[in-house]
């Protein structure tokens, strides 16, 4: 809710993380779009996401922003690129990641940042080597470890 470069970055991070989760748990997508996406951009976002394959209903999903870059900022306008990872798992779904780059255009309107353009470039850089034991990669481990946890909130610190 701050019209500053750091405010734009924090808004973008939170929107991207929420958007990833919503795109993987489609029941939340409409709510996400209504809350954070400018009205003119909503139909496009919803239509684009609907064309993408999605995990089965009831799958757990969590979105995370790993890094970001402020491409441009002018008063009430900003462009941000974010490197994101979405993770999902479930009873019949092995823990799976997808990585992407998200390019956002934001405008500050009505006291907060709104998304006017959201484009996802797939795939993003994918760290394909994975450390850890096989036990770490089971849906049971994910559910046991992450039940009750929530995604972090991104700030301007």
């Amino acid at each position, binding site marked *: 809710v701050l019209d500053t470069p750091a405010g734009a970055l924090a808004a973008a991070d939170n929107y991207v993380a929420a958007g990833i989760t919503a795109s993987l748990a489609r029941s939340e997508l409409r709510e996400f779009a209504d809350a954070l996406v400018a009205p003119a951009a909503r139909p496009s976002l919803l239509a684009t996401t609907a064309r993408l394959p999605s995990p089965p209903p009831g799958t757990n999903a969590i979105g995370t922003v790993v*890094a970001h870059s402020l491409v441009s900022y002018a008063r009430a306008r900003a462009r941000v690129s974010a490197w994101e990872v979405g993770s999902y798992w479930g009873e019949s779904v092995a*823990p799976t990641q997808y990585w992407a780059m998200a390019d956002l255009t934001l405008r500050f309107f009505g006291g907060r940042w709104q998304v006017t353009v959201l484009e996802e470039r797939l795939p993003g*850089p*994918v760290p394909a080597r994975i*450390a850890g034991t096989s036990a770490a990669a089971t849906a049971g*481990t994910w559910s046991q470890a992450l039940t009750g946890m929530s995604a972090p*909130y991104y700030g301007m*610190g």
Partner: protein
Amino acid sequence: MRVLDSPSPTKRARRVAGMAAVFAVAVLAVGGFIAGRATGAHGATQSIMDVDGVPVGVRHSPAGALAAADSYLGSEQQTVERDPVRFAALVREAYAPGLRDAALRAARDDRLRDPSGLALWARGGQSFVVIGAHHLDYYHGGMAEVRTWAGQVFWGPGTSPAQTWALGRTTLVWIRDRWRVSAMDTLPSPGPAPAETPQAGSRDDTTAVFDGLLRGFTAVRYGTADG
């Protein structure tokens, strides 16, 4: 950063045997702190303030404790091997006094135990820390404990991009004007790691791709909904 002890030229979907501790193992009892009830420092409206390049948690609330734990863990992981000077600054600004010397010693020992990690940084290796999720296990005003699922992505010349995940626990104590770390340790249970990265391929999983696409990118910052 704790790079895998023995980075091997594994291909995607092949698991690297053994995982180095991701979190600084600094399980050190710090007793006797009577937490203050001071309000946020500097008249802060933010939950995290930048003090000499160190993210400092200054919001005395449950959400503030979460933001502080995320920030401290992320900063610790990013600097402990790769940038000892910045790690020392983090310890000075954000660790409880009774933990500081031991944390610096532990970091020195960790660096000595991980020559491959140091070699990666010396070659210009890069990394980002990922806070995947967190949980406030308890908050008692003057103390808080946060459980965190965190990961790290690293790559560099001669080291193909890799990721590692773990569960950690950070105990915080509020002293005077900020949250300070009184303990930070790795939990023994495995940190959830992916079974599949179906997109991986030569177009997106090489060091050259990472260097090219992520040039100019910086680490995210953590905070609270109200600042």
